[in-house]
């Protein structure tokens, strides 16, 4: 094996994404759920960069740049919401935060 084929990068990215999905669905700590979302965003970034390098198109890397900006904004807003919830309910357990559930 001289060169790593594109499919290896895609499989690694799919595996990371699946771990993130499993984490989001099963963890109860809101902050860890957020971290799993970051993991999933990163695995998508890996896919974008792999395609960008293999097809010789820099647009993929520019898109990753935007994804990172959105992820930073999302993390900041999400953590502010978590702080506001913690101030009111003294917990970040998502099973205790269900006032929006009818």
């Amino acid at each position: 094996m001289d060169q790593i084929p594109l499919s290896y990068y895609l499989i690694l990215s799919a595996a990371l994404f699946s771990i993130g999905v499993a984490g989001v669905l099963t963890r109860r700590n809101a902050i860890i759920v957020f971290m799993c979302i970051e993991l999933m965003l990163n695995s998508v970034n890996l896919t974008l960069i792999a395609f960008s390098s293999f097809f010789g198109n820099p647009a993929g890397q520019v898109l990753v740049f935007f994804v990172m900006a959105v992820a930073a904004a999302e993390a900041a807003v999400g953590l502010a919401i978590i702080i506001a919830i913690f101030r009111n309910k003294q917990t970040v357990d998502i099973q205790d935060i269900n006032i929006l559930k009818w």
Partner: protein
Amino acid sequence: MNLEPIVFIVTGLVALVSAILMVTRRNPVKSVLFLIVNFFCLAVIYLLLRAQFIAIIEILVYAGAIMVLFLFVIMLLNMGTEETRREGKQRRGLFAAFLGTAVFVEILVGLRLPTGEAESGISTSAGQMGTVESIGKTLYTGYIFPFEVTSLLLLAAMVGVIVLARRKIL
């Protein structure tokens, strides 16, 4: 001797193991640290893909800024380890493993792994493509409008965070 496959396999395995550890640890601080390990591995893989600028940004923005924010909030809220609830503990883990595998298989089926020219290897122009110069040229010519919209998004996020985290919400 080409070292790239070895580097890829080692960093890929470390990335996967650290992701699994991140999801399974009870202590959120440990989770953050494993996620940082994962981000460093991804940065190495970006370097293998000749995306130098993105690799540096990954470490600076993700492992640096965003993860410090997470650590800050975890320590600010003084969270202990998640207390275990007896009921459904075992089932939850099984459910997670099953769902994770299902999503993974589904993605693999959806991929219909590419063949042909893409399999021949990284494009020869990739080395020049990942530089700051090349990314900047693309960003400031073809993608100037999305770039300006991003600045607006960051401003909105900044104002929103300050409003949300105030002691008395409006």
